[in-house]
């Protein structure tokens, strides 16, 4: 079964390579082929996760390598969705490196049969973790579109019509992707927190216990809430929104990784 995952990784890696070449040479053909390969990789990845789930009779996200693998899957899913919605050719060159890196990392620390912690033997895991990972993936897109916005804005303001000016999408498209992924991520994050609270009530007897992960996710949620508030009131557009999206993402990374160190969530 491992070969399916390796196949997916290989497809992602070639897709990444072609995306980079297509980005550098500005060729639609490369981008299209890259997308097709990533699509095939994604199907293989999905098949792998499904088979793994049946084999374990559990949602396959109960160890660190599992979650890295699932995060890569979520990122690819959001990447494909974003590409079809906004047709940003440069996106692959910025998202696929992380996907490939996560896959490699997951493969190196892979453990075939680990014991599933008793706490995770719950139905909540299906919903709570999948929306959480999709939220992270969406926020990563928010982050990427923010960075693309800032780079392109800098090119346009400094009147340096160089390499990136020709290759990055228009500010408007960056902004639309930022807004869309922001709203999607925020809704998913809210669902994550709510379902987490119910699960906590079942598992630990309390809805909220200020565990580091809970605290961090609340902070992240708060940052994005502020961003959404100002976006809706139209005061923060473009550059400021892009800056906040970066801050929000740093916080999201912290939230994701904090449970590796301490707190009730340490089984990650």
């Amino acid at each position, binding site marked *: 079964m491992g070969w399916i995952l390796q196949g997916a990784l290989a497809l992602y890696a070639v897709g990444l390579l072609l995306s980079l070449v297509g980005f550098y040479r*500005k*060729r639609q*053909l490369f981008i299209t082929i890259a997308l097709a390969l990533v699509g095939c990789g994604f199907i293989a990845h999905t098949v792998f996760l499904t088979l793994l789930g049946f084999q374990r009779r559990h949602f396959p996200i109960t160890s660190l390598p599992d979650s890295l693998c699932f995060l890569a899957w979520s990122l690819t899913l959001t990447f494909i969705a974003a590409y079809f919605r906004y047709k940003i050719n440069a996106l692959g060159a910025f998202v696929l490196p992380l996907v490939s890196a996560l896959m490699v990392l997951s493969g190196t620390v892979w453990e075939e049969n680990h014991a599933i912690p008793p706490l995770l033997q719950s139905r909540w895991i299906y919903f709570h973790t999948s929306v959480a990972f999709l939220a992270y993936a969406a926020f990563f897109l928010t982050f990427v579109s923010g960075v693309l916005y800032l780079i*392109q804005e800098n090119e*346009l*303001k400094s*009147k340096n*019509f*160089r390499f990136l*000016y*020709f290759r990055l*999408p*228009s*500010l*408007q*498209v960056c902004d639309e992707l930022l807004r869309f992924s922001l709203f999607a991520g925020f809704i998913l994050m809210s669902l994550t927190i709510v379902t987490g609270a119910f699960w906590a009530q079942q598992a630990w007897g309390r809805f909220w216990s200020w565990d580091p992960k809970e605290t961090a996710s609340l902070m992240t949620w708060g940052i994005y809430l502020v961003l959404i508030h100002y976006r809706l009131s*139209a*005061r*923060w*557009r*473009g*550059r*400021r929104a892009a800056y906040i999206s970066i801050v929000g993402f740093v916080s999201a990374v912290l939230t994701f990784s904090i449970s590796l160190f301490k707190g009730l969530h340490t089984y990650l």
Partner: protein
Amino acid sequence: MNLALIGLNHKTAELDTRERASFHPEKLPEALRELVERPGIQETMIFSTCNRVELLSRVKNSAQGLESMEAFLREKSCIDGEQLREKLYRYSEQQAVRHVFRVASSLDSMILGEPQILGQVKSFYNVAVQAGTIGTYLNGLLQAAFHAAKRVRRETSIGEYSVSVSSAAVELARKIFGDLRGMSILIVGAGKMGKLAATHLRATGVRSVRVANRSPQAARELAAHFHGEAVPFEELTKWAARSEIVITSTGSYELLVDYARAQQIMQERKNTPIVFIDISVPRNVDPNVGTIDNVFYYDVDDLGAVVEANLQERRKEAALAEKIVEQEVDSFCARLHSLDMAPVVVELQTRIQEICQVELDRFFKKAGPRDPQERRELEVMISRIAGKIAHPLITQLRSTDHDPLQQAAYLDTLKRIFKLQKDSES
């Protein structure tokens, strides 16, 4: 190959000479018919635009063909022989093929990668087709040139970047707003450059064009030109706030939009992006407005910088295009050379022999045993018939030796009729 080309273009001759050498469109068919009668010329076409005049012919031998074409051009243009000789370039065989391919792909154009050239080549080709001076040979060459040009368009982005100042404004607006449909433009002043930029923007399908001018009459006229709306000059701030793209192009010496006014505009726009394109000299908009969030400011020099950057990109793409052209030239020439007909001749003869032999065998089987003498005579007769059938076909094929393209077509027909080998190269 028997191909020759002479010509002069923007690199070798100044406009004055090009004008005198050029052919009037109405006189072109006549000129073509005259040229094709000249010694050594078999097929010909003439290409004549403001940037180049070129004569391309299939010739009996290149030296004579070049000589005839030069004499023809000298007579028609009344340019002094010595002077003309200096400015002409002469190509034959593969070099001529390459030149035609490069011209069609816009690699030899004054503005590298400009897209009109392919259409022009096509229309001059059609004129020659109608005048009846083009045969299979030039036809094949031109088709291959069109193919090369299309490949260059498809596989490089040589034509993608705008290289005029006014279309650079459109490109910048696109980099900010993406799709320009639904945008509103405000044109301030009635300067020529502003009008030109607005024309380019209008072509992208913007929603509305508004015009403000100190003279209401001029504003109305310009607005009518763009099917837009004239707005009072005094309400500049209000209307600027309602537009995404503001083009200023007045003869005014004062700043129409200063920093404070731009801030006010941004407040009214709720901080949505706006582009100021200031084409007037002296400038009408304070360049510092570009430091305000979501305000983008470009003056004439900036537009020039975009054009320069775009030209740079085109030059990079041109290197790639040259490679494609080289591939196409090689494959075209290889196609001409590869038409070796010896195997086909042998096969054709064998095939006809076979058919006769089969019939003979059938006869022997049906008619019973024959004495050896009679049998031999019948065999000789059948073999002669086979030879007589094959002979005119092969003579005809040999007669096309000088014309590879016609020969290819003929070979192809023979192969199909007699169901010979499918692939000429196998």
